[in-house]
């Protein structure tokens, strides 16, 4: 009987002993930046381990930590990735990881010490606590100079103790420490959906023990709690209809075990979007009536008037009959600009005429925006008219542009029979008049012009007098003869 009572007491003592209730922590070697990028401070690491042990935490031995680092090829200090963290939990059984960096340690020009500590919860790989301290001997001055630190060696225990005084009381471990399942995979489907669309969440749980399967529920803002259907194995699924109201809807996972333990995990947010993107086209070119004219190439710049992620786009060009002559569509964001070189999809140059460029854009919720613009391909040379009439003793040349596209510049040269340049004229506007003395012999006239689209015109007239009607020429001759007579 006394033996039985003693056994029960021993069992109770074991159950209530600090180590049985303790959280397990792995203190990784503290990085020391004062020694360079790969510096390490084992003394400080050991100090931290002892202090945490004194606070009732179960500390993973330093040998086990170093061995873990070697096994997992962790060649850096001060940080870990999520996979490493989960491995620490799996291999070392640690609930918490303490990482730290000595940010400074100097004796000259001033004695200073700086440290940052991070505490990571291993079950969700979340940094739950952090503290930074910087101390200088100047910070520790005492009126009577009593117990003033004189070196960095004196400073660091003070800084570390200062930090550890703020050690967190609750790291959310009670909530999760008995959880037997972890989220292996979660798929919330599309992040952006249109109102009323079906949203499906697929979840795969890891390490679920047979006979101890949790009740899996989703909490969706505006929808309340949704029980996830068990689809066999560790797979769970839930579907619901997206809200009719635009907005962001966070989704959380709640796991309830028969033992009464529960775990809540934030899975993500889905966005309900009912509006198509606000899209505009910026086209730089000459606007003629209702179309933008160009000759070789034109830049078409799509602009989203409100910042929004784009899932895909479609660019097409249609001719006057509405036939699509060029089309391209891609997944992903819009390019900064489209360059159309006046060619159809097969690479051939399109003829002069009007075309419609159409840009369609779908946002992540598949709302579509369409915007179009009329373009005019104009490759014909400027429609220049050159006329001459006699006026007094000379000729007046009248130069006009009867085309739709304004002239960029024009240039005229008049050459005599002997190859001498007798007159030049140029300008940037039309119509224009040029006076020329009536030549006795044939003179050659060369007129060149270029419109603002780049189309060029060139005309050579072997004898300028041919432009003038015979009567006019004869009249002039008669008049000149009379005067001389």
């Amino acid at each position, binding site marked *: 009987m006394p033996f039985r009572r003693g056994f029960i007491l021993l069992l109770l003592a074991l159950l209530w002993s600090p180590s049985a209730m303790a959280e397990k922590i792995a203190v990784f070697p503290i990085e020391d930046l004062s020694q360079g990028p790969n510096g390490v401070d084992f003394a400080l690491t050991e100090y931290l381990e002892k202090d945490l042990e004194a606070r009732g935490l179960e500390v993973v031995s330093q040998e086990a930590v170093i061995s873990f680092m070697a096994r997992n090829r962790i060649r850096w200090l001060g940080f870990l990735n999520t996979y490493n963290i989960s491995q620490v939990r799996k291999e070392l059984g640690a609930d918490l990881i303490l990482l730290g960096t000595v*940010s400074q340690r100097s004796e000259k020009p001033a004695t200073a010490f700086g440290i940052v*500590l991070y505490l990571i919860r291993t079950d969700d790989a979340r940094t739950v606590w952090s503290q930074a301290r910087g*101390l200088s001997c100047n910070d520790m001055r005492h009126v009577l100079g009593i117990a003033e630190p004189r070196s960095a060696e004196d400073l660091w225990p003070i800084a570390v103790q200062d930090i550890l005084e703020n050690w967190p009381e609750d790291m959310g471990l009670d909530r999760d420490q008995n959880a037997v399942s972890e989220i292996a995979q979660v798929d919330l489907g599309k992040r952006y959906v249109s109102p009323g669309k079906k949203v499906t969440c697929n979840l795969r749980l890891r390490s679920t023990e047979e006979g101890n399967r949790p009740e899996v529920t989703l909490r969706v803002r505006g929808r309340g709690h949704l029980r996830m259907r068990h689809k066999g194995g560790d797979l769970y699924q839930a579907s619901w209809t997206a809200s009719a109201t635009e907005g962001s809807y966070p989704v959380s996972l709640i796991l309830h075990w028969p033992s009464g333990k529960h775990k809540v995990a934030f899975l993500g947010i889905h966005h309900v979007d009912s509006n198509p993107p606000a899209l505009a086209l910026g086209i730089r070119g000459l606007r003629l009536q209702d179309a933008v004219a160009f000759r070789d190439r034109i830049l078409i710049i799509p602009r989203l008037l409100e910042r929004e992620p784009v899932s895909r786009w479609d660019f097409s060009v249609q001719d006057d009959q509405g036939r699509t002559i060029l089309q391209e569509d891609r997944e992903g964001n819009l390019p900064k600009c489209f360059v159309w070189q006046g060619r159809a999809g097969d690479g051939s140059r399109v003829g002069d005429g009007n075309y419609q460029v159409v840009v369609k854009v779908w946002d992540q919720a598949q709302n579509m925006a369409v915007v179009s613009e009329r373009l005019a391909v104009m490759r014909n040379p400027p429609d220049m008219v050159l006329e001459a009439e006699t006026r007094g003793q000379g000729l007046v040349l009248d130069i006009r542009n009867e085309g739709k596209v304004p002239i960029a510049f024009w240039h005229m040269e008049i050459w005599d029979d002997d190859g001498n340049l007798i007159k030049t004229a140029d300008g940037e506007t039309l119509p224009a008049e040029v006076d020329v003395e009536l030549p006795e012999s044939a003179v050659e006239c060369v007129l060149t012009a270029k419109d603002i689209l780049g189309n060029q015109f060139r005309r050579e007239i072997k004898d300028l007098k041919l432009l003038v009607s015979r009567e006019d020429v004869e009249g002039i001759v008669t008049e000149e003869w009379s005067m001389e007579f």
Partner: protein
Amino acid sequence: MKDAVFTKDKLCLSLWLVLSLVLLCLAACGPKVPNLVKYASLPDERICRIAVLPFVSETDYPLADTIAYRVFMGELVQTGRFDLAQEGDVREVLRHMRIWPSQQPHIEQIKILGDRLRVGLIITGTVVEMAEVPMADGVNPVIALSLRIVDPLSGETLWHTYHRREGEYYRKVMHFGVLNTVTSLVHQVSQEVLDLWFKKGLKGCTD
């Protein structure tokens, strides 16, 4: 009469002293808050998960980028408002994209980072200045940080903050208040930047 003149002189002297003190204070004071430029609005929804990319250093101070980065990250954790992507995950994705520590990712890479890390915002930082200026009784630390809040969906910078402080700025009376270490100054500067961001509308998961 002599008393009156004496009183007048004393008054003038007092006025000069007050004026000198005011001028001294004005000369010593920098801007009270960090300089914040908003290029675009932050997302309307609360941001739960964010990533801070390793800082870039433009100074000669050894490992200025790592010091500022670790302290800033710590300050962000302390706010308790965000789930911070692990530095190891951030560095892993950067390594996959072959972005070296001194480089800042471009827009497309920011988008990939956002997607891979599943974060609602990305913070990038540059240490523009970090120094310890020797003084008679120690050093005066100096830090200037340039921080950007980037939208991982579009890759665009939403907010930009520049903040510069010296340890002497915090002097209250005698040696009290002065920040004597780079670490404590970065800690203070990070706190001021984050305070401003929250005041101007940055919402965490718990807001």
